C-alpha cells in the first residue's frame, strides 16, 4: 500500500493498493480466521464462517427487508459511523430463500471486504481526524476484496459484478 495524492479534494492523500496486495491481504485474513476457528482451511468457506468473521470485525450483522428499489437490486450494505465499527446489513430474503445461498455468500464476502479494507486503511493512517478517518474508511472499503473468496485459487465464488449494484451514497457512509 502506498499513499498517493488525491485529486478529488476529499483528502490530501489516499491509499493505493495493487490488486495483488489486496488479494494477498484478503487471503491471509480468511486463511488465518479459518485456521483459528476450525484448525484447518475449510474450502469452500462455510457460510457460518463468513457471518462469524463479520461479527468479529464489525459492530453488528443485521438483516433488513426491501433493500432493493425499482432500479437496483441491493442485497447488502455497510455503514460507517464516526468512532464506531461498521454496521453490516444483509437482505433478509437471501437468508429465507435457500436457492439464493450463493448470492448470500457473495454478499457476505463483499460486505466483509468493505469492513476489512476500511480497517486496513485506518491502520496505516493513525493521525487522521475522525471525520477524515471516516472518509478514508469509506473510500478504502470500496476497493476489491476478491481474495476473500478465492482462497489459493481453490474456491469458485466470485464477488458479484458491479453492474446493477447501487452505490447509493458514495461518500455518504454507506456502501452496497
Amino acid at each position, binding site marked *: 500500500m502506498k499513499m498517493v495524492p488525491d485529486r478529488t479534494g476529499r483528502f490530501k492523500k489516499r491509499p493505493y493498493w495493487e490488486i495483488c496486495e489486496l488479494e494477498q491481504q484478503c487471503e491471509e485474513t480468511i486463511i488465518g480466521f479459518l485456521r483459528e476457528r476450525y484448525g484447518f482451511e475449510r474450502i469452500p468457506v462455510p*457460510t*457460518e*464462517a463468513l*457471518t*462469524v468473521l463479520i*461479527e468479529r470485525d464489525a459492530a453488528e*450483522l*443485521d*438483516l433488513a427487508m426491501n433493500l432493493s428499489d425499482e432500479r437496483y437490486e441491493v442485497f447488502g450494505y455497510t455503514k460507517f459511523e464516526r468512532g464506531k465499527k461498521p454496521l453490516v446489513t444483509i437482505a*433478509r430474503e437471501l*437468508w*429465507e430463500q435457500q436457492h439464493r445461498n450463493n448470492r448470500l455468500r457473495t454478499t457476505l464476502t463483499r460486505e466483509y471486504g468493505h469492513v476489512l479494507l476500511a480497517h486496513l486503511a485506518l491502520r496505516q493512517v493513525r493521525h487522521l481526524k475522525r471525520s477524515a478517518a471516516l472518509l478514508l474508511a469509506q473510500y478504502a472499503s470500496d476497493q476489491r476484496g476478491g481474495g476473500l473468496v478465492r482462497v489459493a485459487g481453490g474456491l469458485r465464488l466470485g464477488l458479484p459484478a458491479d453492474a446493477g449494484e447501487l452505490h447509493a451514497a458514495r461518500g455518504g457512509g454507506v456502501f452496497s
Partner: protein
Amino acid sequence: MKTFGQFIVDRRKELGLSGREVVAGIRNADGKPISIPYLVDLEHDRRKPSDEVLVQMAKVLQVDSDILYFLAGRMPPDLNAKGLKPDELAAAFKAFRREVKRERKP
C-alpha cells in the same frame, strides 16, 4: 441491565457460537429449527421468543432460563402466579425486591 437481545448475542459470542450453531439446537413447535432471520430478530429485540424457544435457547447458551424469562419481561410458567391471591403475589414481589436489595449491598 442488558436487553434480552443484547444478552443472548453477547452470550453466543462468549461461547464462540455462530448463529447457525444456535438455530440448529432450537426447534419450533413444528419440530423444525428456527431460522437465522428469526434469531437475528430476537438478537435485535424485534421479537419475543415463545416459551419453547426460550427454554431451548437457555440450554444452547448454557444459562438459567429464569434469566431469559426475566429479560424477556415474563414470569417463568412454572411459577404459575395466576393461581396466587393478590396478597400472596404482593408478598412474593416484596421478597424478590428484598433479595435483590440484599444482593446489591457491598
